[in-house]
């Protein structure tokens, strides 16, 4: 029996898509506090303002992240959501877990929380929605002792590192994303569990330029798999696609007309670096930007090269200041190997942190600091020599600025001597 009239919320059940309102009503049969979520949301729709208070001091002992405090500003009207804290659980790398583990997590959440979950949050965490402050410590004890799970990141912490499925199941992956994601999660436990930075900081690891975790759009530090040498071509398989023996794009291409390699692949290459000559596919690899389009279209015929590694990009963020920002390429190619315990990647990360912790303003993401102080400053800090790939557009400013150390002899001069020489 509904506790509140929710005509506006009920509208959200009428579309053809699955409705969270229906889910909440079903959950309310065993967890009556879910009626109060619907009631409070209905009120928010009417008032056009949120009825959640902003933040709080909840957490578990020793941790400064992983729990997001949420309190209703109308607790008398909606007592079931007077406290409605969110708990973020660190997901396993590449999100490999058994159904038994998921059942255990759900049972734990039925015991201590509302039973509502969000799988997964945009950082990748398993998100458990809605519990009271007094339940947090017992929940954390059971979570860590019985389920061997830990909390994820929130606040000004390193957020839970996230990765694509990587070489565990994907033939395109240029490095083992799950391995580095797990390694850095363990290496940076202090930064994940306690605040360390001017604002949030996110790592994301994608095994190839398809970037299935959208690291280029969402992370301060994106490691995107790439290769240095030539795309590997199986000419027989290319002919197979042309003859229709294989389904292009793994069967996902629209079937309105037959596959045409000229129209469907060559003409759509962004740098026009492909051609058919004597019935053989040729790729001018120097001009390939690793967009993955041709590999996606003909996966049986084309594969990444054999010299594999990753590109490092920095500074993506969602819009708060100045709108959304994609990450900027900083280092075009690094080797990614567990043999050195990812030492070379850790070195880059810590150079970034050392600079950003000093130069970043409060609540300023790395990308905003980079934008404010300029890419040349960031490259200098990172000790990276500028390359053409760092340039977004050709210069419009005709002046060339030289620093003191770039000019032989520097800028020091005897101005009187100079004027003597150049006086009219």
């Amino acid at each position: 029996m509904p506790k509140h009239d929710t005509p506006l919320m009920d509208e959200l059940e009428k579309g053809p898509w699955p409705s969270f309102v229906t889910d909440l009503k079903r959950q309310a049969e065993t967890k009556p506090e879910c009626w109060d979520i619907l009631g409070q949301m209905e009120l928010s729709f009417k008032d056009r303002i949120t009825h959640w208070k902003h933040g709080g001091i909840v957490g578990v002992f020793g941790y400064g992240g992983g729990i997001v405090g949420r309190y209703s500003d109308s607790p008398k009207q909606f007592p079931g959501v007077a406290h409605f804290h969110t708990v973020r659980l660190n997901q396993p790398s590449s999100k490999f877990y058994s159904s038994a583990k998921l059942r255990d997590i759900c049972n734990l959440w039925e015991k201590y929380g509302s039973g509502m979950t969000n799988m997964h949050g945009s950082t990748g965490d398993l998100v458990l929605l809605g519990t009271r402050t007094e339940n947090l410590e017992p929940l954390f004890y059971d979570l860590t002792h019985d389920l061997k799970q830990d909390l994820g990141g929130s606040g000004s912490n390193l957020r839970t590192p996230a990765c694509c499925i990587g070489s565990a199941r994907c033939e395109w992956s240029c490095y083992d994303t799950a391995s580095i994601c797990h390694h850095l999660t363990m290496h940076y436990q202090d930064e994940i569990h306690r605040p360390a930075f001017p604002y949030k900081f996110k790592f994301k690891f994608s095994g190839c330029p398809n970037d299935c975790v959208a690291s280029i759009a969402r992370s301060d530090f994106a490691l995107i798999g790439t290769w240095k040498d030539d795309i590997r071509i199986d000419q027989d398989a290319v002919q197979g696609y042309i003859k229709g023996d294989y389904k292009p794009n793994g069967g996902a291409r629209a079937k309105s007309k037959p596959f045409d390699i000229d129209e469907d692949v060559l003409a759509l290459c962004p740098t026009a670096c492909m051609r058919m000559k004597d019935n053989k596919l040729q790729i001018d690899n120097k001009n390939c930007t690793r967009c993955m389009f041709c590999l996606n279209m003909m996966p049986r015929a084309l594969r990444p090269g054999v010299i594999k590694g990753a590109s490092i990009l920095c500074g993506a963020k969602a819009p708060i200041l100045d709108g959304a920002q994609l990450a900027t390429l900083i280092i075009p190619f690094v080797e990614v190997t567990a043999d050195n315990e990812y030492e070379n990647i850790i070195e880059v990360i810590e150079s970034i942190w050392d600079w950003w912790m000093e130069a970043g303003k409060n609540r300023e993401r790395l990308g905003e600091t980079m934008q404010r102080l300029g890419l040349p400053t960031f490259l200098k800090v990172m000790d990276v020599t500028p390359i053409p790939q760092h340039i977004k557009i050709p210069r419009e400013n005709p002046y060339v600025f030289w620093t003191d150390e770039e000019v032989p002899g520097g800028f020091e001069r005897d101005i009187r001597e100079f004027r003597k020489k150049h006086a009219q």
Partner: protein
Amino acid sequence: MALSVDELKAAIIEKATKAPKPQLYIKDFYACDADSKPRVIKNVANDLVKEGKLMFWSSGSTTMYALPSRIKNEETRPQD
């Protein structure tokens, strides 16, 4: 010369006590000792939280520090 850990702890508590704002960002503590690295200051501030002398306040996206007596506690704050 950088302050010792104990001196830094005292400086951080003094800052948290006297600052006009009751809740401070970690960067606000950097001024407690210009010679200490931000990472050292962060570690000392987090130690003070473990000792119960400071508390974390978090909006979910960012985290601030405050003395227990000055923190904005949503559970005890009157309804808006």
